[in-house]
């Protein structure tokens, strides 16, 4: 399954990180640095594995324990975002990314 940002979400990268607005629920969400980084990777790559790979390479290097922790953190973050309707899982052949931002 691929990942895509829900069409119901308007988001913007600000000086404080990524801010999200869910147009159906009216919920706002501000992501911290790590969440923002994961969010942007989901937006650009649309798959779990590249996100995990890039973050592991960036932060864990060859430290496998750290790498496992990063994978777990990414899974948890994406799971929460899916649960709250900010990210959706879609079959792999569908377009994976849709970005809406304030003009």
């Amino acid at each position, binding site marked *: 399954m691929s990942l895509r940002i829900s*069409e*119901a979400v*308007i988001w*913007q990268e*600000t000086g*404080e990180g990524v*801010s999200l*607005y869910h*147009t*159906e629920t*009216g*919920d*706002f969400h*501000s992501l911290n640095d790590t969440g923002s980084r994961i969010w942007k990777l989901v937006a650009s790559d649309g798959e779990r594995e590249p996100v995990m790979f890039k973050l592991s390479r960036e932060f864990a290097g060859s430290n496998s324990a750290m790498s496992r922790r990063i994978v777990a953190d990414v899974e948890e973050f994406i799971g929460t975002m899916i649960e709250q309707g900010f990210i959706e899982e879609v079959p792999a052949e569908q377009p994976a990314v849709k970005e*809406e*931002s*304030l*003009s």
Partner: protein
Amino acid sequence: MTRAVVLGGGLAGVLAATVLAGHADEVVLVEGDRYPSGPRPRRGLPQSHHSHVLVAGGARALDALLPGTVDALLADGAHLRDLPGDALIYSADGWFRRLHTGAHLISCTRGLLDQVVRRRALGGGDVEVWEDTRALGLTGDEVRVTGVSVSRQGSPPETVRADLVIDATGRRSQSPRWLAEIGAADIEEVSVATGLAYATRLYRAPVDLAATIPAIMLHPGTEKGRPARGATLFPVEDGRWIVTLTGTRGGEPPTDEQGYAAFARSLRHPIVADLMAEATPLGVVRPYRDTVNRRRFFERARLPAGFAVVGDAAVAVNPIHSHGMSVAALGALRLREELARHGMGPSLFAGLQSALAEEAERSWRMAVEQDTQRAGQQAGDRVVERAGRDGAPRREPNAFEREIRTRLAQAKLSSPRLAAEFFGVQTLISAGTVKDRSEIARVLTGRPEPLLTDEEAIGQYPALAAWRRTRLAAATG
């Protein structure tokens, strides 16, 4: 023979009685006052001197209960105004454009509405009306209400047996005490203060504007830490306008002649003050302060069978929201549905109060949310510790959140779809649970519509604009 007794002969009581007339062999309506002979305020209803509008959801319910009533009101001089298609509304976010959304309100005096409804509901003689009769309490026990104790025209108390007793006595209902007296459970009660006061005056309208005037609403601005002050002007029957000035604590509208005019003049826009100055006052300025939102959760208690509460006696919201009469009509319609489903027997009583409470839920939530928000703004958000859904203290909104909120608030001024959603909820014709996602996305990602200037907003109403131009020309010589 089955008998239903309805306590309170206001709108909620009259409508409940007329619904019950189709299901009980005998229906008695107990009213503490005597009804006026014409469309005039009732002695026991102090708020009847103030603005009363029937919003679209309530108008539909009223027509479903008593077909043809809205037409009868309009024929007797009530005015129908689309929202915001026939309403000049200056919200905190700007002027609304003249959009036709399907939402509307019916404006007339409370006296006219009550008279027309009474004529149609009680004229057939299916309901026995006991005027000048005081309700003193309930009879029965915690399991079953068997009747009521009343005093007719000052006579000694008498007991009236009933299979169903409905309390429709309004904000001053004594039901919690009456229930306690027969051993029933306590009733949980919640009050949400508004700090709002208002003052109302009737005017004879200038002839050239009497019929064409839009409904006018000047909402308070968003200045933190200052009283929220606003005004409404609605056309009512017989070429009159009813003007209501509102203010929260520290900014209450005065009731003296000069103070009233000065208050109107000090609002965010002088249109109401200008119109007042050209109209002829009819009678005194009348204050009103009983604006607390108060809910008694009868549905949460183990109520005795054979007893229910309707209207303001159960859920009374700040009258500024104009929901009282409409919720009363929606409640009566729900009572009719429940009676049709269960008949007037034991299976009715089990869920009746919950069903009636459901009809008031939207109005209650909306009123409490808006009044709490206003109280927070007035206090600079110090008083109300706003919390997120998880109960955690809410963080200060960041620039993104402020931008989104501002854009959405301003977009509803010009987007027919968002305005329809907003006014649909306000007028109780939709629950607002389904958001128009594509329109929200469009207004958030596209170029914002420019806000209307004062002149453009008033210019949407040619007769009003022409009148104002003439007046300004005369004033400047």
